[in-house]
Structure formats: structure tokens, C-alpha cells
């Protein structure tokens, strides 16, 4: 096949491209320039975007021996990922920009362009398995598994995707990179949001949305217990950084329970008030089989690297409803609910949707 390898400049995508070559594909490497101003982006950040990352990707492509180009996706990335990220926070939700980037950039804008140019598929260095059965599964390296941020992909997108790393651990990928003479073998992993240079999400949002002082309110009493400089900067389940004026009557820690953009209010309460047993979500995608007509027994994951809980999932039009077997804390609107079916060959992604409440 003619395949396009998206190369971030990191070790994973370099080894993925090399493996695609080894598997006999005709591979072309592409680095996505996502930053309008490359200097402001984090080096080594996932999928991005500094000049150094671009050079690392090009060097890897040269070592692998494949053509290499840079595609300018900065405008699309800004509209579909960065602006969306800000708008979601402003609306009191907690977005996952990596997921959004997969949905709108890597497996949409890039894939579309690749297909139009005659490529059959896009190869990435995501840690997830996608075999001949077309099912998306967790990586063998559970700690590095990225199936959660890929679960948003549709059948059409998955059919044109290749994830050559799913059967390997991160350690194996690094060893192989060194054996292949790829200089990125020791490049540190990235964990933060690539377009927030200093890792200060709150500062980034304040810069984009401005300061908006408001009240922090106790859920049970309705009393104002503190103030904030912008409700958008909070996430459901958050405990740190609340700066409450008064301790709770029972002396126990309080957590963010909800954010109300309309009144610019952050509501706090005890940990148990965070517990959620039912999750509603929108825009469902179902790739683990035919779209179910009856409730499905499965497991759900409610945030990246979050715990997995048994649940019953029901689809109704544009809505997904999950009944959790045991309550979960810190479920934030804007995150994805991903349904998995446990499987000895790697848990299978059944579907996903965006949590609304």
C-alpha cells in the first residue's frame, strides 16, 4: 500500500514509519506544522510542532530512507483544536485536545488530503492495536495505551489507519529505535498539551478569555466560600487551587462539583457528592460491531488514563447513556466516555461519545 506516516519528531511515530517500510509499504513521511508560531510550542510535545521536532522528524525520515514533507496544518489546528479547547473551557467543560486533534486533524484533514493524493492509509505511532479484523484494541502496554484518544474515530477513518506499535511496549519501541539508528530513541515522552508552552493551562486560558472574577459556592449551603478569577479554569473533581476563605463545617476537603458559566460560579462540595452513577453523552461513534439496538454490557473509561468500570451502555439516536455498576468520581463534561469489551487479545473499543453530564 501507499501510506502516509505522520511523523511528530518523537520516537513512536519514527518507529511506526520504519515498521511500515519493513512491512513492505511504500511510505512517505509528513510532519504536521501545527503552530502558527513554532517557538511558542513545547518541544517534544505530542504530535507537535517546534522547529526542533520538525528537524527530528526529517532526520528520522532520512535514516529510514523515505520521502519527507512538512504540511502546514496550523490554521486548521488553530480552528479545530485550539479555539475549540478554549471554547469548551469557556462553556464549563473539560476538553481533550489530543482526542480532538485525532478526530479533526490527523484522521480527517491529513487523511483526506492523503487519500486525495493517492495514499491508501495514514500510519501513526499511537499505542493501540488495529488488526485485520478492523477492531481497535488497547495496546499491550496498558500504561501507554492510547485507544481512549482514538476511540472517536469512525469506521471509515479506522479503515484507512495503521497503528504498527500496538503489539509493543514503549520500552521495546525505544530499543528498536536505537537498533534502527534513530536518534530520537532517547527523546523524552511528552505529557502536556503541545500548544501551551509552559504547561500553565490556567494562564493560557486567562490570556485567551481574560479574567472573570466570580464566586465559589458551597453546594449544600449555597454560601459563598471563596472567589475565583475565572470559572473556566476549573475542572470537575479538582481539589487543589480552590483558595477557599472558610473551611467546610465538617473539616473535610472540598472539590469542584460543577461549573456554571452563565453565573460564572464554581460549586464545591465533599468528595462523595462527586460520585456519578449515570453518564449521558452525545455524538456517539460505534466501531466495535454493528450499532447496538439493545443495552450492552461492557466497561467504560471516562477520562484519559482513568479507571475502568463495568457498565451498561445504551444508544438512543444521538445520545449515549451509561449506567455505571459502581459510582465514579470526577466525571467531567467534554471528556469522552469510551466503551470497551474485555478481551484476552486486548480490550476492544466498542464506541465512544462526548460526555454532557
Amino acid at each position: 500500500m501507499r501510506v502516509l506516516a505522520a511523523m511528530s519528531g518523537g520516537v513512536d511515530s519514527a518507529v511506526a514509519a520504519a515498521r511500515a517500510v519493513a512491512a513492505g509499504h511504500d511510505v512517505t513521511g509528513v510532519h504536521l506544522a501545527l503552530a502558527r508560531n513554532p517557538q511558542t510550542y513545547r518541544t517534544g510535545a505530542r504530535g507537535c510542532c517546534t522547529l526542533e521536532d520538525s528537524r527530528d522528524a526529517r532526520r528520522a525520515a532520512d535514516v529510514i530512507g523515505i520521502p519527507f514533507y512538512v504540511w502546514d496544518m496550523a490554521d486548521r489546528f488553530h480552528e479545530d483544536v485550539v479555539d475549540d479547547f478554549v471554547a469548551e473551557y469557556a462553556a464549563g467543560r473539560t476538553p481533550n485536545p489530543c482526542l480532538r486533534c485525532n478526530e479533526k486533524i490527523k484522521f480527517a484533514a491529513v487523511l483526506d488530503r492523503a487519500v486525495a493524493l493517492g495514499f491508501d492509509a495514514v500510519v501513526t505511532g499511537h499505542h493501540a492495536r488495529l488488526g485485520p479484523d478492523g477492531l481497535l484494541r488497547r495496546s499491550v502496554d496498558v500504561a501507554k495505551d492510547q485507544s481512549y484518544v482514538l476511540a472517536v474515530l469512525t469506521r471509515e477513518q479506522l479503515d484507512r489507519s495503521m497503528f504498527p506499535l500496538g503489539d509493543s511496549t514503549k520500552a521495546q519501541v525505544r530499543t528498536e529505535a536505537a537498533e534502527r539508528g534513530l536518534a530520537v530513541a532517547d527523546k523524552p515522552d511528552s505529557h502536556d498539551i503541545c500548544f501551551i508552552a509552559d504547561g500553565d493551562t490556567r494562564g493560557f486560558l486567562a490570556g485567551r478569555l481574560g479574567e472573570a472574577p466570580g464566586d465559589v459556592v458551597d453546594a449544600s449551603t449555597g454560601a459563598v466560600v471563596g472567589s475565583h478569577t475565572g470559572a473556566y479554569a476549573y475542572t470537575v473533581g479538582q481539589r487543589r487551587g480552590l483558595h477557599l476563605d472558610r473551611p467546610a463545617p465538617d473539616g473535610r476537603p472540598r472539590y469542584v462539583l460543577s461549573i456554571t458559566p452563565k453565573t460564572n460560579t464554581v460549586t464545591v462540595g465533599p468528595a462523595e457528592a462527586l460520585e456519578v452513577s449515570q453518564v449521558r453523552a452525545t455524538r456517539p461513534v460505534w466501531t466495535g460491531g454493528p450499532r447496538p439496538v439493545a443495552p450492552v454490557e461492557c466497561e467504560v473509561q471516562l477520562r484519559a488514563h482513568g479507571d475502568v468500570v463495568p457498565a451498561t451502555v445504551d444508544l438512543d439516536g444521538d445520545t449515549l447513556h451509561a449506567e455505571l455498576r459502581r459510582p465514579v468520581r470526577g466525571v467531567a463534561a467534554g471528556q469522552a466516555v469510551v466503551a470497551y469489551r474485555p478481551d484476552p487479545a486486548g480490550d476492544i473499543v466498542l464506541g465512544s461519545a462526548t460526555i454532557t453530564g
Partner: protein
Amino acid sequence: MAYLDHAATTPMLDEALEAYVATAREVGNASSLHAAGRRARRRVEESRERVAAVLGARPSEVIFTGGGTESDNLAVKGIFWARRGAGPDRRRVISSAVEHHAVLDSVDWLIEHERAEIGWLPVDSAGRLDPETLRAELTAYADRVALVTAMWANNEVGTVQPVAELAAVAAEHGVPFHTDAIQAVGQVPVDFAASGAAALTVTGHKLGGPIGVGALLLGRDVAAVPLLHGGGQERDVRSGTLDTAGIVAFAVAVETAVKGQQEYAARVAALRDDLIERVRRAVPEVVYNGDPTDRLPGNAHFSFPGCEGDALLLLLDAQGIACSTGSACSAGVAQPSHVLLAMGADDDRARSSLRFTLGHTSTQADVDALVAALPAAVERARRAAAPRTPR
């Protein structure tokens, strides 16, 4: 492979390569006083005389440099500093909107760091400068101009400028005129003395010499403040141990290219004209950019409406055809060409352009390969650029 990117760099001539290797085997610093040094110096000075002889310069006017970018920087900054040193009011640089970045960015640097003023000369839709606009600029700013710099021939669209007329206008006002002749030497007749220029940039690797060696022809009475300080090897204007092997090979290449220019130009222009005609037939909506007659013999430059140049380049590259979008890169990201924008093209036309440049190794087979691959590539690139329905 069909290599149609000779304006980026062209293969070394056999005679230049042989001269390089033979000289590189010899030890000797041309500044040393012993026999080995004298031998190296003799090679350098013979090379200087060869370059001077074929380019209409005196040997003492040839300053060897590390290539075209250095020569352009030395000319623009060095002459600016020298002229301003002699008259503090002379802070204005007159340049054209279609210069190579080696000149553009040098001028920008002077604006930013040396409080230079700039007068940009516009070009017409073919990329051509009008000497009258230069005359108007010089008349308006009479005593405040440090230098004029305008290229001999454009690296992207191949348009050849009326250099002698421009130099004559500058001379009327007693202002030194520098010309970047990197793309011109060996392609069109270039004579330094006859051109009336005060300084002229030439580089090796565009005419069959090695990469990393070039020269600035600098008139004997033209002062330039050095960029590089050290041993003062080149007329105290340029320091650095002389690259004997590179200079020898450069001189061989310049001499060969200039002496063979007429024959070369006729052969390559015939191939190029065939390329243009067949590209037009294969892709009727193509837009041919640049001056149709006053043009480098190896240059063909097109816009392909509805396509992105970088998509076309990828597709042609996959078919073994090497060409260029001809535009500047930052982090490898294609920017719309400043040359086409200056010629009045809109953003889309600028982004849809490709440059094909032929050279001394080009054959009919190269043209045939391009013409065979182009229609399918254009078709695909057009589909890739078409707006899609949002998901």
C-alpha cells in the same frame, strides 16, 4: 530521475570536480610563506585571474567568499556601512521587491539594527524592474542613498533585469550599484565592467562548481566594511583561510560556463521551450509566469490553478521528477512566493506555482518524463485541494 531543479543546484562539471580533487590532495595555506604555501597561493591567484578574465573584472576586484549568501551580505551590509561611514545621512537602501532572501533579509537586518531606510522598487506583472522608478527614487532621496541592489536575473521566475540601465541610473547619482548575478552567470552574458555595477555576486554551485565557494566582484574604488574579521586574506574585506581546492574548481566552472554560455543557452532554451509548449498542451489552464523573452534559458515557471504547489511537488517527486515550489521555507512550511506576490499574483496563484529549471545535464528524456507525469499529478493535486464537506 528527471532532475528539473538546476536553479537550486546543478551537478559539478567533470573538469571542476577533477580540479577540485587534484588540488584538495595538495597541502598548503595560501598565506604561508614556504613552498607549499606559495604553490597554494599560485593556484588561488591563477583562479582569480581566470574568473576576472571571463567576467570582465580586474583580478583585484575578485573577492573569494563562502558563496552567494555571504557575497550578498558583504555587498549589502559592507557597502552600506562604508557609505554611511563616509556620510552619516546615507541610510537609505534601494532594492527590488523580488530579490533573493540573501539580499532581502540583509536589508531587513539593516533596517532593524542600523536604522536603515528602504525604498522598494516595484516590478511589473512579468517581474521586471523599470529604470525610471529607480531614477525617481534616486531623485527624491538624492544624497541619502547608501546603495542600490537589484538582481541580474530572478531565481524563481527567471526574469532578466535591465541591469546595465539600472546601473547607469545609479551612476548618474553617484550611488554604488550591487547586483546579485547568481542565476545569471553562465546563463546569459555577464560582463562586470560593461554592466557598470560596483559589485556583483556570483556563486559556484549554480554553474557547475562546488557548493560553498563564490565571489563578490567589488570595484577597485568601492569600499566595503568587512563582515568577517581575521587574517584579512581578501583585500582586507574578507578574512578566512582561502579554500584553495574550492576556489580552483570554482574558477574552472566559471570559465567553462561563461565560455560555453551561448551554445549552452541555445541548447537548453530549446529544451525549455519544448517543455513549456507541451506543459501548456497537457494542462491548458496553466499560467506561465515571468518574462516570456527576457528570461533565463533554463527557467520555466507555472501556476497550476486549483492546485497547491507542494502537493504537486510531492506527487512529481514520487514519480522521480525533481522540481521546486521556488518559495522560501520556514520549518519546511511553504510560504506564498514574495516574487509572485510582487508581480501582482494573488495568494492562490502564488501557492499553486512550480518552477522547473534545466541545466547542463538536462535531456529530452527529462522533459518527456515531466510531460508524461504531469496531467495525472495535476488531477490528483486538484482533488486534494478541493474543499470537502465538514465531518
